[in-house]
């Protein structure tokens, strides 16, 4: 009997390994087939920081953007292999597999039966957050497995040992560190053993102080308001949860609540994290574990339940499965279609060849990291600018340049801010910035002699503005 169970587990592990390989490699594969740069999103900021570390050792100040780097231990690890995309992918895969093993361990610790664990992990692997975390490397790709091992050790009573990964979590990702300590506190409260938490809290307090001083963390950025569209991948969020899996997890919560009342704290934490997910991506990443657990439980419940109507059972299970797969495929499609595109990449290379290194590039903030990484040029605004004290001023300037049809005013602003290059993409013309073809800056570019178009390929345009009028 034991042997059969082991075989079942081994088969499951092999199945998960293959699935992880497919799921994590698909976005990069699709991008590679479209001749796009394989990475996407904010990874290019991390790569630039890692390269700066590799060149200069310990760095704090960003010479290109003339501000402090938003840096943590992850960038130092990344600097070891930031020049090798394949190693980054393999490392992501490795961390993804480690995370699955730890997640399974955690479920086993809480005596979740094999089948429920299997479906929870299956849904977890197919979840957009798993793909987001491990298809490329991010700081959370490290902090999440560390968080899981720290919790496993803590739950098993290895308090001192659990503090070691906790220390590293604080150096990778402060919000995940706070969440880990919170979960330890909840567990201690359930077990009514507060002395257990003392050692991790002392060690973690020290590590937190070190992290804050070493990397100059700004605690305000831990919680940011998310819009509704940014929470659900079904509405186009880059890091988000699929509405359908959330719905399934709520069903799981209801069934589990009816079955075992002792899941009170787990259920409360689920609800709390769900609400906080609207304000913090870091919490959403942790919430994904809870969600997948409840969704897996619900799925297993549907599979094992003695259905009154067999026909309905078959269709319902098929529908659930199709919905989960559909969410995953839609998300993979979103990642493979995301920027930077091939056309944009070519424009960045062209921009890099322009010998005006001290002049700024003006474009939408979502392209900032790409320009900085590929073209080695300073941008007027990027996604990190949001955390600067003078962001309101920068944003005001940006709005004025984008939407003003007053040539004198725009010329003055561009000169004042030392902006020489203006990068325009098809997406900016189609709603990202402008809704009309003759709006603001677009009108000026087409109808004024002050600007000259130096690049126009695949819909991407680069305009140059003279140093003097």
């Amino acid at each position: 009997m034991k042997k059969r169970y082991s075989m079942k587990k081994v088969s499951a592990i092999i199945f998960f390994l293959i699935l992880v390989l497919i799921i994590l490699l698909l976005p990069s594969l699709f991008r590679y087939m479209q001749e796009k740069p394989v990475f996407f999103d904010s990874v290019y900021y991390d790569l630039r920081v890692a390269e700066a570390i590799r060149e200069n050792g310990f760095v704090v100040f960003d010479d290109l953007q003339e501000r402090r780097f938003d840096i943590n231990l992850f960038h130092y690890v990344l600097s070891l292999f930031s020049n090798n995309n394949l190693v980054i992918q393999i490392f992501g895969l490795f961390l993804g597999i480690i995370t699955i093993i730890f997640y399974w361990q955690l479920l086993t610790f809480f005596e979740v039966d094999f089948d429920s664990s299997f479906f929870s992990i299956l849904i977890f692997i197919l979840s957009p957050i798993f793909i987001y975390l491990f298809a490329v490397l991010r700081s959370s790709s490290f902090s999440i497995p560390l968080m899981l091992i720290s919790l496993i050790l803590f739950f098993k009573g290895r308090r001192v040992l659990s503090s070691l990964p906790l220390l590293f979590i604080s150096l990778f990702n402060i919000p995940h560190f706070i969440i880990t300590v919170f979960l330890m506190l909840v567990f201690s409260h359930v077990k009514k053993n507060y002395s257990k938490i003392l050692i991790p809290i002392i060690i973690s307090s020290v590590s937190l102080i070190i992290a804050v001083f070493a990397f100059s963390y700004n605690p305000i950025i831990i919680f940011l308001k998310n819009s509704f569209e940014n929470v659900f991948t079904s509405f186009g969020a880059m890091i988000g949860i699929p509405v359908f899996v959330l719905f399934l997890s709520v069903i799981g919560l209801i069934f589990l609540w009816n079955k075992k009342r002792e899941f009170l704290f787990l259920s409360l934490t689920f609800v709390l994290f769900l609400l906080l997910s609207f304000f913090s991506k870091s919490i959403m990443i942790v919430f994904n574990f809870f969600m997948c657990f409840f969704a897996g439980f619900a799925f297993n419940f549907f599979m094992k339940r003695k259905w009154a109507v067999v026909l309905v059972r078959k269709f319902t299970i098929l529908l659930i499965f199709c919905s989960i797969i559909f969410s995953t495929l839609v998300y993979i499609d979103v990642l493979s279609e995301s920027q930077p595109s091939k056309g944009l990449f070519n424009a960045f290379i062209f921009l890099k060849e322009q010998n005006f290194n001290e002049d700024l590039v003006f474009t939408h903030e979502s392209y900032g990291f790409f320009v900085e990484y590929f073209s080695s040029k300073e941008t007027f605004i990027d996604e990190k600018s949001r955390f600067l004290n003078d962001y309101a001023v920068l944003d005001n300037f940006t709005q004025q340049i984008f939407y003003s049809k007053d040539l004198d005013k725009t010329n003055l602003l561009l000169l004042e801010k030392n902006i020489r290059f203006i990068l325009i993409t098809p997406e900016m013309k189609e709603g990202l910035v402008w809704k009309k073809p003759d709006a603001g800056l677009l009108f000026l570019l087409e109808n004024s002699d002050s600007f000259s178009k130096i690049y126009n390929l695949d819909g991407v345009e680069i305009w140059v503005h003279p140093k003097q009028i």
Partner: protein
Amino acid sequence: MKKFTASIFLLAIFLFALFLRLFFAFQSPEFSYDSYFVLRQVEHIKETGRPIFSDSLSFGGRVFIFPPLFYYILSLFSFVFSVEYVVKILPNVFYSLSIFAVYLLSFHITKKRVISLLAAFSSAFIPIYFLNLNNVSVYSLVLPLFLFIIYCVLKSEDKNYLNLSLFLLILLVLTHSSSFFLIFGFLLFLFFLKVEGLVIEDREIEIILFSTFLIFWFNFVLFKQALFVHGPFVIWQNIPLQILKNFFSEFNILEVIYYLGFIPLIFGFYAVFHVFSQIKKKSVFMIVGFVTSSLILLWLKLIRFRLGLIFLGVMLVLLAAYSWKLFYSYLRKTKVPKNANVFLIIVFILFIISSFIPAISLANNSSKLVPSDEEINALLWIEENTPKDAVILSRPEEGHLITYFAKRKNVLDSNYLLITDANQRFMDVNMIYKVRFKIEVVRKLNKYDVDYIYFSSKFGPETKLFYADSSDCFTLVYNSSIKVYEVHCEI
């Protein structure tokens, strides 16, 4: 009353209701303004076998997303009869079919044939159903499907009904996205059963779960693109803010009484009170679930006002039937049992006064809500005398007329889903009809490449275009009660 007699009466009610609907519908050969979208779809399916998902005329070129079953059913019949007849008759037949569903549901709840017949008659003449008989509405099919699904779920202990409910559910999902309403109703039904401590059968949970998953999944797949473009605002179909409040208008109790009739309202809400406070009847809770979901969705403005009232009306009639049965049974137990029949007669007379007469009055007005001969002549003139790629500006209400009769591109119509600049277009078009300054108007007309302005003065307060008569930029090329101006200038 014997089953056979009841069947004869029921058939008579159906035929009478259908006759009245068709009588008023055929008072005009035309259709409501929005119906021409349906006509285009049906004619296109008839010609090509596919609906128009990618339309080069609407909004100057756009993509439509909708479940296509309703259009396919209409086009199927159009192979035998002319499209105009099919589109005129079939939606009215569909609406009238709900009479049978109401009878069956009512009989399931009350076990009284007379009361069920009264309920069937009441449901046939709810005033809101006669609001615009020339409107070719997908809800005409949605409503009977809804009612038959509810009936089949209530009778689902019989396997045939269960299979039928699944089949009808698939049809509903393929008909319209308002199938979401079914989920809310079912979930509230489960909630009420739980709160009242009633037993929830396994098969009920299973059917409801299946419905929920099916409706969620299908709509997420179908509206994926719209969800990405509009986010959660897809619920409001991207309708411009200025007209949103007309579609999802405030809950006005007087309007509700007029459109639903006070008899179903009073007796319906008495049934709600009774089922919560005295005898807890499961089938009634199902209907209460749907009444509650209609009220909540109307209150939160998550459902179109007219659609909400259509569902609310029929559900209240079913609840009213339960109340009538309670009063009827009570009066039968008194010393004068004949009073029970008198009670039903009084209810019938009151219904005739409060609902039937308003329904006929609304039906009589239907012929005024269609385009006039002058409008159609002007549009046919445009078809014959303008370049094929011309863009015609009209009010949003007239947009489908432009694409159907004139076969030309419009600037906007009433279908806003996936239109990213819907608000801007709506404001610009309103501005073009309103302002007196030529330069600003020409700028806007150039923006949408408008070649002709269609002016009917039927929608909006403007009686003329002030800038058009005194300018070289505009030539009056068609002059009757409808005016068509050609645009010359460019800025």
